[in-house]
């Protein structure tokens, strides 16, 4: 997974052609850390058609707020720089729900 930040988000996500999944997380967020290994597995499975990025919100709070990310974990899904889907909060961000969005995106 590609670690992106406030400097690289524009180029890596918004300017990227095709599908991008962004995992918003923080070291304080236990559900986020718990989800990470499963997301890594999905990155391996769908990596050829979808670009996987993660953003540590602690270091990129303004970027998170700019994307209306106000709770963790949050997953945003982009196609050609446009946000097409979103999962916000630990109840919404189940591995099953994430994979379902990836399938739609791939």
């Amino acid at each position: 997974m590609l670690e992106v930040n406030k400097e690289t988000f524009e180029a890596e996500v918004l300017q990227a052609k095709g599908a991008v999944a962004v995992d918003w997380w923080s070291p304080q967020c236990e559900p986020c850390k718990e989800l990470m290994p499963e997301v890594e597995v999905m990155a391996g499975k769908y990596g050829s058609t979808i670009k996987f990025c993660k953003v540590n919100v602690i270091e990129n709070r303004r970027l998170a707020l700019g994307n209306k990310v106000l709770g963790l974990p949050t997953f945003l899904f982009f196609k050609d720089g446009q946000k097409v889907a979103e999962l916000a909060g630990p109840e919404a961000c189940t591995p099953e729900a994430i994979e379902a969005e990836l399938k739609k995106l791939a």
Partner: protein
Amino acid sequence: MADLQNQHPTVMEPYDLIIVGGGPAGMTAAIYGARAKMRTLLIEKAKHGGQAATTEEVENWPGSGKTTGPELMKQFREHTEHLGVEMIKEDVARVDLKGEIKVIETRKGNRYEGRAVILSPGAHPRTLGVKGEGPLRGKGVSYCATCDADFFTELDVVVVGSGDAAVEESLYLTKFCESVTMIVLHPEGTMDANKASQERAYANPKIKYVWQSAIEEIKGDGIVESVVLKHLGTGDLTEMPTNGVFVFIGTVPNTEFLKDTGLALDSRGYMLADSETMATNLDGVFAAGDARQKWLRQIVTAASDGAIAACAAEKYLAEEEHLRHEVLEPKEPVLAVFWSPASKESLDVLGWAEQANTAAGGTFKLARIDLYKSARLAQRYGVTQVPSVLLFMNGEVVDRLEGNFDDFTHWITEKTVTAAK
């Protein structure tokens, strides 16, 4: 080669003990299970530690002074792993708990079998159920301060609730937020939290209060912008601008998967268990932790439940083993004498049974069952008094004698003749 079995859990012998849920209750049960040399499997669907793993400040776990939930749960987990407990990360979908062998099926489609089960599935935060809450979840509405506090640095938030969790998490939020306003149902000065926490809250200048009020609606276009508060005395509605809403109004037990399994739940879904032994209404199934109907839900009481449940499970397995070995599996007919040290008559019956059996050439195997030590067994076979004598053939009760033992010797002789045929 020696590990071959471990690679194929589905073809293995049933586990002695399967624990569903890896919070403080489940991990403590696993520690006790492993130390009692039970082959123990712990199933956890997400992060070990349960709700405690998302609680920032923990100050009432004896011996740890001031610690954090994640740190304490990491220690629990290391301790559990160190004792050799098998741990798997799977989500339980379906259970069959009624039989002698309990079956647990996971969403991945795996099937695990155990002779005893401890259910410690925990609980999750209760939602307010007001307009705007669902759409703004993760957009300023949060149930986890440690997860989301950072977003609200130098912003204003409200906290709903006045219990221990609400007060503790409000104190944590003050480290980030400009102001934390607690919305409390009760009249001024009354909160549900313990006194020590309340005093810390009152002493904190960043915490403000709206008394005797409830949230009627959460408003915002994409993100939280305000809450509508209703005063419970006057019914007046007021709108208050805020950046975030943190909800700590109790929990809902994670017992959805236990509905219609025969396990007794109360009307709110909490598991019902004997508070002495954690035994549920199903033989060999025990309940522990926050999902059990109980008076105090804390890490320390969850751990206590887990320890009791594991010891009760161990006793259950020993009794079952004893029953199988002494009563159900022998090829010869078994004369089971239920006795009690307090009943002289039952001691006499034990003696007569021995003499009559010797006289008859040892047709029967004698099994002595202490009624009070084996109350559950007695109940299973409908034995309510001592002495009682049950005759088992191939694991089934074929005859019984209760109450009047005047003709006991004659009865035994008759049975000897029948058994010989």
